[in-house]
């Protein structure tokens, strides 16, 4: 067996966290603590880039597979990646260091503990995206909740406890059912190894219930309508870095899960339940877009827009079209970049004025011009303007959806109109107009680290808008084969 690169990716942040655990944290040493965390996450980022370089995108087989016995005859620790998972890993390793840089302004107390939570979360997230055993996946998937729960509950705003519990309750509800489903799969097939399950297939008569159990977990995490109401609350209360992690990475676990497990393991049930997903996705897109229109809190607005964007993702996945699924993955990557950036943008003004309410602001374009430019770029990406990554994802999804169902594509496209309205209206109310609130005059433009973070997010947003080929190339073969296998198993059953 070669160098265990995936396990390294998973373990490295945890080792960093352990290291932090044993360093003393005082006010003066906060800088050291931060550098340790940053260094760890950067090493991980470069390691993941190296992984991308080594990655062979001409095959859909799992690569860099590590298979170790964990509990004899029962559970193997098995990890491996294919085109579907690798981009999520890179997204995770890319966002985490940016998050760590951003804590400067937002986290005032217990920085060390915060960074430990962030690093551990990175470990778990990478684990989610490369585990090839259902039990291992489940453990990572659920464990990822804990650091997030703590981040909201400890470093959150005034209603943090309510939000943290709401978040926990919702997500736990689905998870229990998924655990039951995983155990049943073991009973039915005798294994929880994903690759083996792909080969064996699961008898069609069990698929519906199993699919629903997995769905209940993924739907909450996506979040899909109507189990989305935890998200706005969680975002509003979470500190900026927490919101970034939540929006950029945590929400992607479910989308990934849908592709890997719902489509991969239960094709027959997926086919049956596609109308359900379509309906919920379209409702999510339209309803939450209208809701976003009326928000007065910037974070809530972006949170609701996230729900709408994730509606596009679920819609695309279940089109079972090359364009639809590829669009979904690109949309997730794009949303990871853009929503992270938007939450950071809110964080920037929040740090200065301590208000997230839209009507606090207005007329600040000439006071903070750099901020205004970057905020504009992300606003445009969020509304899916061609030339940004948001467009490529959304357009491909709708194209795929149109192939499958006219009505759904038409309704979902309506969301694009409302999306333009709420994003531009937000921007106008915050940035343009007359300066009414004179306190805003004291605002300072982006400092170096903020400028750096937002630029880091803006570059890929624009680059992949003009040249999404590196992304599409990486995922193309895997998705092509996924669809082939899916269609074959539909015919066989």
């Amino acid at each position, binding site marked *: 067996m070669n160098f265990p690169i995936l396990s390294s990716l998973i373990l490295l942040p945890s080792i960093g966290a352990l290291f932090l655990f044993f360093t003393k944290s005082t006010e003066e040493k906060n800088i050291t603590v931060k550098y340790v965390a940053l260094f760890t996450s950067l090493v991980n980022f470069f390691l993941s880039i190296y992984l991308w370089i080594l990655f062979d995108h001409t095959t859909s087989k799992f690569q860099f597979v590590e298979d170790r016995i964990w509990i004899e005859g029962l559970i193997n620790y098995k990890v491996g990646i294919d085109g579907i998972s690798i981009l999520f890993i890179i997204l995770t390793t890319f966002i985490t260091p940016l998050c760590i840089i951003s804590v400067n302004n937002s986290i005032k107390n217990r920085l060390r503990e915060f960074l430990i939570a962030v690093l551990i979360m990175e470990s778990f997230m990478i684990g989610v995206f490369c585990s090839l055993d259902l039990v291992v996946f489940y453990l990572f998937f659920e464990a990822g909740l804990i650091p997030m729960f703590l981040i909201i509950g400890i470093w959150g705003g005034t209603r943090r406890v309510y939000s943290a*519990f*709401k978040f926990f*309750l*919702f997500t736990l509800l689905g998870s229990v059912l998924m655990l039951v489903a995983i155990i049943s799969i073991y009973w039915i097939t005798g294994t929880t190894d994903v690759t083996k399950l792909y080969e064996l297939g699961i008898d069609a008569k069990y698929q519906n219930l199993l699919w629903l159990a997995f769905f209940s977990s993924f739907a909450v995490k996506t979040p899909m309508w*109507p*189990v989305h*109401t*935890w998200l706005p609350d969680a975002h509003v209360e979470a500190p900026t870095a927490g919101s970034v992690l939540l929006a950029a990475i945590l929400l992607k676990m479910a989308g990934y899960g849908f592709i890997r497990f719902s489509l991969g393991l239960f094709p027959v049930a997926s086919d049956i339940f596609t109308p359900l997903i379509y309906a919920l996705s379209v409702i999510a897109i339209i*309803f939450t877009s*209208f*809701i*976003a*229109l*009326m*928000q007065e809190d910037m974070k809530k607005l972006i949170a609701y827009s996230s729900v709408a964007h994730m509606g596009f993702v679920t819609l695309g996945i279940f089109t079972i*079209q*090359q*364009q639809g699924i*590829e*669009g979904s993955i690109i949309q997730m990557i794009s949303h990871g970049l853009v929503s992270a950036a938007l939450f950071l943008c809110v964080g920037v003004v929040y740090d200065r004025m301590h208000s997230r309410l839209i009507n606090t602001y207005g*007329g600040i*374009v000439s006071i903070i011009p750099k901020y205004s430019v970057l905020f504009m770029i992300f606003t*445009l990406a969020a509304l899916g*303007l*061609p*030339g940004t990554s948001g*467009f*490529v994802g959304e*357009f*491909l999804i*709708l*194209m795929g959806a*149109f*192939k499958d169902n*006219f*009505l759904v*594509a*038409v309704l979902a*496209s*309506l969301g*694009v*109109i*409302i999306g*333009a*309205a709420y994003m*531009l*209206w937000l921007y*106008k109310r915050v*940035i*343009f*107009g*007359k300066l009414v609130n004179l306190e805003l005059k004291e605002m300072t433009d982006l400092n170096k680290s903020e400028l750096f973070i937002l630029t880091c997010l803006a570059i890929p947003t624009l680059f992949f808008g*003009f*040249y*999404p*080929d590196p992304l*599409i190339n990486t995922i*193309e073969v895997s998705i*092509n084969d996924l669809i082939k296998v899916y269609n074959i198993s539909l015919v066989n059953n």
Partner: protein
Amino acid sequence: MEISIIALPLIASIISGFFGKLIGDRNSEIITSLLVTISAILSAFVLYQVIFNQYQDNIVIAKWISSGTLEVNWSMKIDPLSAIMLVVVTSVSSLVHIYSIGYMSHDPHKPRFMAYLSLFTFAMLMLVTSDNFIQLFFGWEGVGLCSYFLIGFWFKKDTANTAAIKAFVVNRVGDFGFALGIFLIFYLFGTVNYSEVFKLIPTITEKDLIFLGIKINAIDLICILLFIGAMGKSAQILLHTWLPDAMEGPTPVSALIHAATMVTAGVFLVVRCSPIYEYSELALNIITIVGMSTAFFAATVALVQTDIKKIIAYSTCSQLGYMFFAAGVGAYNVAMFHLFTHAFFKALLFLGSGSVIHAFKDEQDINNMGGIYKKLPYTYILMIIGTLALTGFPFLSGFYSKDAIIEFAYLRGNTTGYYAAGIGILTAFLTSIYSWRLIFKTFHGKYNNKNIKIEETHESPLVMLIPLFLLSIGAIFAGYTFKELFIDQSTDNNFWKDSIFFLKPLSTEHPPIWFLVLTPILVISSIPITYYLYVKNKNLPEQIANVNKPLYHFLLNKWYFDELYDVLIVKPSKNLGLFLWKFFDIKLIDGFGPDGISALIKKCSLKANKFQSGYIYQYAFIMLLGFSALLTFLIIK
């Protein structure tokens, strides 16, 4: 070389946008104007090559999106159609750049303004040179974005910001249709490249689709969906409401974007897709009807408006209607011809009105002007030229293109055609009246402005007058010079080649002579009529308005479209948003979900608490009860 036509404006925009502070106002102005002018010269050269050397090319610059069978490139297609557009866009753009140096001289954000103008030019060029629908869409949204930036350029004005958003969102409604059209094309053909799609169109003429419960021919559906996009961008009736509001932007913007180039993108789209539209009688009829309705509607509204820019905006709307009904009757080349001539004279009128506004220090109401033709002699003469060209005064450019439209509508020989021709003539008359009204109220009669003394008004600087002068040359001669090239369809002189497709050749007959002279007579006779109404007997228009109060208000309020949309769409959307949020999310989902459940559990546990009373006799009693129940159950069993 061809690529640099597109690249130069982009480079100009980047330099001015990002390094504007570094290099200074004047340098940004010079660099952007220079680069766009070079691009214009290159475009003229390309057009020359296309006309005389039959040059055509399809340059692939880079790969953009490839997913499954979807292959989209960044590309540059050069054919007669795009060559004409290249020249129109770059030439008007370069003149507007130069004009802006003078017009924006008091503005503190010059580099930003120039950067937007150049960026707009880039996006517009991407739009016209695309060889596929998705790059077209890129340019389409790109110009929309620049329009958004430029309308809201004076960001402190709330009305400007609102107008900017309105423009973008209304355009998005059109884009919604456009995008669906693209999806449908991809669904049917598996490709979005023009040449492949156009080749496959004849194979599906009989194909029917069930779309949202309606059975419809596939080609009809494509055409209608694409046309919805065109309606949005070209401000056709129902989706026109953003264009008059867009006048909040600086005047050079109105000239470039909202008169000469961007708003004509819809017409360009229909002409570009002539190989599809030719197979759809239904869509062509819809286009004709929408076009002529817009032409008529906008002209009536323009009659009573008092904002100089809004009058010209409605006039633009109306002229776009003409272009559409030309396309609708199958005379795509004539539509292009009118697009071409219109770019010059309408840009001239806008820039001229800008010169007037500049002289009056940002006054736009024509009631507050008057009697200044001696103070602004050049502007006056140039505006007269623009007006003559617009109204179709014989031998100026508008005469050739507009009369050709009316002729071809007549020659179409069907009901919509005759109807369109009739409306076309009537609208030409109205056009003439409102245009001369503008001239007379602005330049003649008594001086009416209370804020500025007449001595303070001044002629614009040369940097503004020279572009006006160049445009006026176009306004005078473009029609006569290019008439043969655009309209003549004889085989030995077929300029358009494959870029415009005619299923049946256009009629080469001539309408009766009375028909030909009718429009010019109306147009010429309208000048003394308007002079009488607005200079000699000024009370008469007021009396007419007083007698027909409801009609007057109907026109003054632009047929109440804005109010209607506010009641039908804007307010309900907001209410729906509130309802879905406060009722659905908070009351229903949270109420029955987490909040409800936790409240329920709390209630239950409070109840359960009562069982633990601590009194032994209560516990013993319950035990006894349970024991006897169990026993009874066992015995019965």
